[in-house]
């Protein structure tokens, strides 16, 4: 699954990088989360999305301990 186009647009990408730096997260976490949302989007199914979001957050925490 591809990342949203706005994650590849130069201006938007720059903005995302700035925001990620400001709020001490990485853009990979945003990509992971958008992928989760896209997976569940339109399916009408919501169960499991919380677990997936938690896992993405945990993966980020393991990538950047103490972040």
């Amino acid at each position, binding site marked *: 699954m591809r990342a949203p186009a706005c994650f590849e647009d130069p201006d938007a990408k720059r903005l995302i990088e700035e*925001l990620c730096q400001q709020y001490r997260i990485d853009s990979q976490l945003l990509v992971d989360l958008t992928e989760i949302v896209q997976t569940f989007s339109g399916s009408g199914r919501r169960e499991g999305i919380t677990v997936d*979001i938690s896992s993405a957050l945990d993966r980020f925490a393991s990538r950047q301990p103490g972040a």
Partner: protein
Amino acid sequence: MFMSKIALANWRSYDSAEFNFKPPTPAGKKPIVLIGAMNGHGKTSFLLSLYLGLFGRHGLRYCEGFRGAGDADTAGYRRAIESYRRIGADPAEPTQVDLTFIPTLRDSEQQKEVRVVRRWFFTGSNKLRQGEGFEEVQVFVDGRPLRASDSDAAMSAIELALFPAHVTPAFFFDGEQAQSLIEKMGEEGLRKAVEVMFGMKVVTELKDSLRTYLSAAHNRAGGRGRSSTIQDNLDAKKKEREAVNDLMGKRQLDLSALRSEHENMSRERSQKMEDLAKYGGAATRDVGDLQRQYGSAEKQKESSEKALTVALGTIGLNLALTRLGPAIRNRLLAEGEREAWEGLRTGTLAKREEVLAVAMPQPSSADPILGVLSTDVLDKLRTRLLSALDRIYNPPPTNCAEDFLLGHIRGEQRARVLTTLDQLTGVGGASIRQLASQAKDAREQMDDAKSKLERIGNLPTEVKSLKERIEELNGLIGTSGNRIGQLDNEITSLKSQLHDLNADVGRLQEELARLEPEQARLAVAERVNRVIEALSDALAPMTATRIEELVTKHFISIADERFAEGQIELRQNQPPAIRFPGQNQTSLLEVMSGFESRAFGIAFSLALAEFTRQRIPLIIDTPLGNADSEYRPRTLAALRRFDLDQIIVLTHDEEVTERLFDDLRPFVNQTFLVKFDSVEKRSKVFPDTFFWDPRR
């Protein structure tokens, strides 16, 4: 991405036809695919098969005659499918659209090959089957079938693998439809398309999902404020503990200093008392003690003498009967002798001046005996006479007692005692001796205290100073002792408080530790939420600006020079307009000529593709329409320059004329010619063929 194949069965004028498209050239310089067909030979059928083949009922709204149909319009959908079925089709054969899209090297790695096969089943009278069984859809991703429980699930899978249904008219459209894009702009249709294609819809969905997640996570963690409340409480307890620790430290220092001072004062007092004792002759006595000692000894002496007198008086019989009776009698007699001797001696001495005056009358010069003597001789004579007088009763007689053991019994009293002794044969000698000894001791003690008192009374002022300092030290030591007690109590209380605070801090830390994993996720999720909110706020204006710039760029490349300086404006809930420099008013594109509106639609599609970086094939039915001879080459030039893997142009012979075809030829990857066979009543597909020989 390019469409590699579309196979149609019993679809409108096609009974069974396939378009097999070549992969794009490696350099991407030949994106154009030309499909030529005269009016009514199969161009629109081709386009409609894309909408309905991919998205079923969700694509119906983009089909001519059904625009505006809703997803729930099942009757309209059934009616459409029945109307799109090839007349004369074998009832046993379903109507089928089979589409395959393949990613190219220029697509992202995540892009997969997607094949969608949709079939509609009919009854013997060529009516759609009743119920949900009239339609079947299969989705294959990289050759593997996806499990889709129903058509809606299949739709989601297709949208996920390819693109959302509602952006389809921006990529698959006919010329007239491009014109209708302008009308749709006012209804936010294309704005939504932009948002979806650019990923803003995903960002919005992520924002909503995060809100839901945060709300649920906060609830699980005991409410939004719980962790912060615990942290606040913990911070407050730690602060309080620190304050108590500080206070206790200060109090312990105070206590230590006070104890040291207390010990110093105690040592000083001991030293002063020792000094005082040295002056007073006793270790720790002071004047008061001596006075009390003196008084006590005096009373003891009086009581002992009284008791001895009474004892001698009342138990004389017993005394006489004891073996000590004679000794006491002798003692009384000896003391009587001494009393008599002392009386005589004292009397003689008292009269010696008188005797001397008789013996040596004054003035001596008038005395016939003494008058002849010199003064020196007179003095020697006086001394000799006094010495002689003194020798009268010295030494005392041998039977005289050396001192007075029973000195209080004198004169007639002694005589009565002797008489009584003489009358009695025995006496309680031990008792008498004891009483006599006590009386003697008391007298000695009294004399000792009296002596010391006299000495103290004569001591220098240092004693007074010592006493005052001792008194002062006594007060200070008492005060410091009280303060030490208070401090001890205060420190004990502080220790108790500290114990309680340590327990509270530990409990709160345990609570936080239990919440820690969830708290860590919450903290990150809150930060992501802020990023997404900020991104969402920033993306909308950024998107509007960028899309306006790109639409303007592509529109100007197609439109004539009158629009060269124009700037397209896309405002929410307003139809698109163009603004020229120096003009306050904008011109609405919807009121311009037909092809200018169509050019805007094409420009918008190109801008959308460029902005969103979606490499979806562009499929345009009759893009040139009523364009004049100048618009046509510009429009085709804009298309061929555009960086896509595949641009399929459906055209009749008056659109892409022979001259235009020659101009376009270097950019054409493939041609097809579709012809309707009026005898067989079906459209036939001829690859690598066109209205004009494509190989020349």
